[in-house]
Every structure is written in C-alpha cells, then in structure tokens.
C-alpha cells in the first residue's frame, strides 16, 4: 500500500497556500476579462481594471492578492488504500499552514476564542480541515483560504419542502442583495441544497471550488444555476457595489438527499479573490 509521510503533507499544504495566496486562478482572471466586455458602469469597469492590475502586481512581486489571506480551509480526500505514516494528520496540516503564512508574509487572521478572549493565535492556525475517505490510492488536497468579508455575508435557512424552487431562488437572491457591496463583488455564489443543517453549509462551501463556467451535471440544477446568475446580475450591485451589470461571476449548486420534512439551503459567498489550489499526492 502507498504511504504518505507527515513531512509530505506539511510540504504539500505549505506550497498550496503559498501559491493560492499569490496567484489568482486562471478561470477567475478570464472571468474578469469577460466581465469587462459586458460591464457598462464606468466605476465598475475601473474596479475590474484595478483587479486585473492587482493580479499582475501580486504575481510579479510575490505579494498576497488580498491582505485578508483568510481562514485556512483544507479539503482532504484520502484514498482508502493509502497509509498515513505519521502521528497526527490535523497537526501536520496545521504545520503546513503555519509555515506558509510565515514564509509568505501572510496576515495571521485567526483569534483563539470567538467570544471572550479574541486573541490572535499568531500563526493562522488552527486550520479548518474537511476530511473524507474515498476509494482508491490517491490523496487529493485542496487549499482554499477564505476571507472574512465574504464569509460574513453568507446565510443558511431551513425552508419548508413546500417552498420549493421558488423559495430557494428567493433566499439566494435575497442573500446576495442584502450583502450588496460588502463581500467584494463580482462574487461567486456557492449554494448547498439538501442534507442536514450542517451538510448544506458544507455543500455550499464545496460548490465554491468548482471552475467558473462549469455547471452541475444534473440539467435541472444547471438550469437553476444559469437562471440565478441572470437574476443576480439584474440586481445592479456591480463590481464593489458601485452599481453595474456584473455582480456575480458564477452560481454553483451542490445538492444531497434530505429528510422528508426538510429543505435546507445554504448560501456561501466568495469574493472575487477566489483563491484555491489543489494537488494530488
């Protein structure tokens, strides 16, 4: 059986976050260029041009794209035929995060206690690890640093099954409209439908990892994604909320079976600095 060492995990995590923080994914960059073709608002266009310029500066000078280098969210899909040769996987991932945020001169944005102490942990740990066993002999790791501004505009609601498609649409659009310019539009909207309370939120987060332009494999959900994107871009919020045509670059839906009594819907908003990077070990 294949073995993966603690040191391999640390190195992989470190490199993923170092890259993710500085290099904007190509699909996001292309979406900026395409947005320039349709954006009518002069302020909106000025914002898009700044974002393109910012991408180039970050790349050339090795600087963080955004000062909010985020909560270190990590997805690990671990093949059941792979052995972990080490003591503590969670600690190995944390060590990788620690090294990336130090070597990358990234901001440390995590406080130890949400309510009372709120003292900065100083190394951006702990990370947030989503771990899943999958069949096979590979380990897939995705690093997705998540900024606080867009995370704060996210929402979850337990709808009634009777609310149906219209209820879902209303909740997604309401959430985006209420967020306005706060989450740094143009945004990507991750929608998780079904499962339980926490599963819908997880699906919404996972939906953000999808490449822009790629749709759900189920045509009904793919059509709902397209319809929601059109509706959201009619809201007029525009780049940074200054008014315009391009409020969202994509709406991505993930779904899961759910209880006969339930229709959970979660909306996770991603700012335009949609950073993620993956590796297969």
């Amino acid at each position, binding site marked *: 059986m294949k073995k993966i060492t603690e040191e391999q995990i640390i190195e992989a995590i470190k490199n993923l976050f170092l890259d993710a923080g500085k290099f904007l994914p190509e699909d996001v960059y292309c979406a900026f260029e395409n947005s320039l073709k349709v954006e*009518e*608002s002069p*302020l909106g266009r*000025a*914002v898009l041009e*700044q*974002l393109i*310029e*910012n991408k180039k*500066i*970050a790349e050339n*000078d*090795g*600087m*963080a*794209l*955004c*000062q*909010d*280098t985020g909560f270190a969210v990590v997805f690990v899909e671990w093949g059941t035929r792979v052995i972990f040769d080490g003591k503590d996987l969670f600690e190995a991932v944390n060590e990788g995060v620690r090294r990336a945020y130090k070597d990358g*001169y*990234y*901001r*440390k*944005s995590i406080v130890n206690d949400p309510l009372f102490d*709120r003292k*900065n942990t*100083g190394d951006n740990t702990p990370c947030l690890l989503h771990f899943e066993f999958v069949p096979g002999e590979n380990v897939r790791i995705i690093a997705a640093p998540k900024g*606080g*501004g867009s995370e*704060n505009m996210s929402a979850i609601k337990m709808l009634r099954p009777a609310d149906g498609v219209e209820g879902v649409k209303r909740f997604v659009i309401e959430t985006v409209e209420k967020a*306005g*310019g*706060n989450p*740094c539009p143009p945004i990507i909207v991750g929608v998780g439908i079904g499962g339980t309370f926490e599963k819908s939120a997880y699906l919404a987060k996972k939906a953000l990892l999808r490449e822009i332009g790629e749709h759900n494999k189920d045509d009904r959900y793919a059509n709902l994604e397209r319809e929601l994107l059109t509706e959201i871009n*009619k*809201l*007029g*919020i*525009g780049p*940074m*909320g*200054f*008014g*315009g*045509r391009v409020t969202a670059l994509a709406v991505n839906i993930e779904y899961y079976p759910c209880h006969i009594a339930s229709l959970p819907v979660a909306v996770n908003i991603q*700012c*335009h*600095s949609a950073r993620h990077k993956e590796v297969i070990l």
Partner: protein
Amino acid sequence: MIKKINTPLSDEIISQLKCGDLVEITGVIFTARDAAHKRLVELIKDGKELPFDIRGAVIYYVGPTPAKPGQVIGSAGPTTSYRMDPYAPVLLEKGLKGMIGKGKRSKEVRDAIVKYKGIYFASTGGAAALLAKHIKSSEIVAYEDLGPEAIRKLYVENFPAIVVNDIYGNDLYEEGVKRYKINE
C-alpha cells in the same frame, strides 16, 4: 476627472467632494480596524487622550499583511466598514474627517457624516497589492500587541478612492444600484 486631495482634510476640501467622485489622496492617514476602534472609543469614554491627533484625520480600515524585508508594507486593501459603524460617530464628533473602507454604512454613520462634515471613501477591496504601491511609509503608533490590527501612521501618495457618502447626504451604493437595477 480625478480630484487630487491632501490630508489632513479641511471643511473646504470636504465641501467640494461629491458622491461618485474619483479621488487620489496624498498625505498622512491612520490605520485602524475592529479591535483598535474598540480601544479608541474606550479612551474617549474614559476622557483620556487618543494616541494620535484625530482632528482632520483620515482613518483607513485595513489590517495589512506583514512587510517583507525591503518593503514598506505588505498587501493593504480595505476591510468591510460596517463593523466600525458602532464606533465611527463618536470619532467623527471628536474631529475625525475621513474614513476609507468598503461597503455600506449605517444610518447613524451617514447622519454623523452630514452633521460633523465628514466624508466616507471606498477603495477597491481585494486590490491589496495595487493599493500597497501607494503607501510610501508606515510606522506603528499604537497597540502593537494587536498585530495586523495595530494603529499605523501611513504616508500615502495618490491613493485611489471613490467618494461614497458626502456631506450632502448622498450614498453611492444606493445611487449606483438604482441606476443599474433591472426591474421587470
């Protein structure tokens, strides 16, 4: 057309700025975000002196990344302003003139901007590497223990921003959306 303005801000400069104006700011500005605001307002409540002269000052809502060797500052884009809404009116009353951030302000803040003749600018969130290029010097003036949330005195040159809330009660977020919203 871009309006060039210098800090500290006078009532005369502010009276010429209108919602939607593109500006370039040159001069000293101070950084402060959540934790620093909490401390500043506590000082005011206790009748104590603030760690910098707030009269005519501009506060930039930012928590930058650390500077690499040879850099003045790391990436430094604006953070969302509404979190500072509970504190901003008190600071405006004490003489604060300008705020740079992103996102909509509360009614209380918008009213205080009109009442105390202040101004609220937005810069492009996430354009943090680009905005850092306009920061020419940086020194910590208070609350070093807060790390990225410490209060820094920055000298900026031609720092790009947009007027959101002016003393005439206008709001760019409301007007912009109204102009581009498609109603069916």
